[in-house]
């Protein structure tokens, strides 16, 4: 078994100190150590975006990030975003535009959308499509997700 490492980081605005195994992913830490389950496991190799989180402002796949690499950084998950005005706006837009079906990909898409909008508030349809190319959805066919993001800007 790998050594445990003490890390100190900010999670959704709250300082956290945790001991994590050196080989653990940030995804496993969030779900199994911290107990925040909004960040989803979809593939474990960065191909589906269900585990999208924000670290120091940018979005990453939590499954590709070492938990130890959270040390000293600012991490935001869907639970944190949902409690902010931009998160509320995105949620309302996803709901209103019918962008949610089974909902398993939704937290990752909302996270990615928040980053996309923040970075490029004037994003048009093509830029929104490109912006979510790393998030797979099996239910909606993406159309309503694209509309929801456009509607939340």
């Amino acid at each position, binding site marked *: *078994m*790998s*050594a445990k*490492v003490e890390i100190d980081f900010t999670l959704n605005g709250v300082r956290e100190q945790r001991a994590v*195994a*050196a*080989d653990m*992913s940030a995804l496993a830490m969030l779900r199994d150590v911290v107990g925040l389950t909004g960040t989803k496991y979809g593939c*474990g*190799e*960065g*191909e589906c*975006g269900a585990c*999208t989180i924000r670290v120091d402002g*940018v*979005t*990453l*796949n939590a*499954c*590709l*990030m*070492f938990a*130890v*690499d959270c*040390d000293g950084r600012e991490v935001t998950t869907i639970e944190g975003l949902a409690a902010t005005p931009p998160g509320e706006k995105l949620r309302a837009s996803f709901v209103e535009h019918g962008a949610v079906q089974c909902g398993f990909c939704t937290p990752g898409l909302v996270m*990615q959308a928040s*980053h*996309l909008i923040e970075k490029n508030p004037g994003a048009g349809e093509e830029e929104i499509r*490109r*912006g979510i*190319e*790393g*998030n797979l959805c099996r239910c909606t066919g993406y159309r309503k997700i694209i509309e929801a993001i456009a509607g939340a800007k």
Partner: protein
Amino acid sequence: MSGIERYAAPRTLEEAAELLSAGGATVFAGGTDVMPQANAGRLRFQKTLLNIGRIAELRGIGESNGVVRIGALTTITELLESPLVRGRFRALWQSCDHFASDQIRNAATLGGNLCNASPAGDTLVPLLVLDAQVVLAGKPNGTLATRRLPLAGFLTGPGRTLRAAHELLTAVEIALPPAGFDSEYFKFGTRPALDIAAISIGLGAVREGRVLRDVRVAFGAVAPTPVRAPRVEAALEGRIADDAAIEAALEAAADEIHPISDIRASDWYRREMVRNMLQRMLCDVREG
């Protein structure tokens, strides 16, 4: 079971080199290659897990004396956002635009993409076209030593490079190409990104009137490493991109590539795509 005994996140290159000299370290920066490879059992963790992501001196893009230095920790997103990269290294910029997804571009580093040495690695082909050099640093005898290698020599096989176990790739250096030099990257796929190239092509040249000078061509995913294609370059150097020159280039390309068949494409199809897409790129050049 994996047995990482120690985790280290040094802040300086000196410190990192020291740790590497002790041996037995798994190095990561963005983690986007190391993590899935470890999960799939293709990579066994060494005793030390070495996070080089905190070494400030490995960051940044800067130019001095006609040489652009790109720190190994520069993320693909940072490359995409660099006016210098976009303005002078168009092929590199295009390869970053086709790179995986936003989430991965935000984490993945240029150094990581080079050290991963995938035959289909997106940034490798344009960097070959740009005659990039890699800078390696290590502390074999107690003092920090640096060496430079042309990228073409650095890559030795799938996942294999000339980086010694005690070395870190610290930067990529690119001499600013001559005025008028332009480059183009083509990645074969059905979608803009989130795809592994079945083949890729990098093409760079200076156009003097209708004549091509300083022609550089590289291919990805058609050999154990991305490769420069000297015979294709020779077929085009100093010539007008007319039908005859293009045909000569295509014939040379057929001789210079050695694609394999795998689940992504057959060798035959890879050959056809190199031919058709190189032809298309050269026709675009001809039409200006």
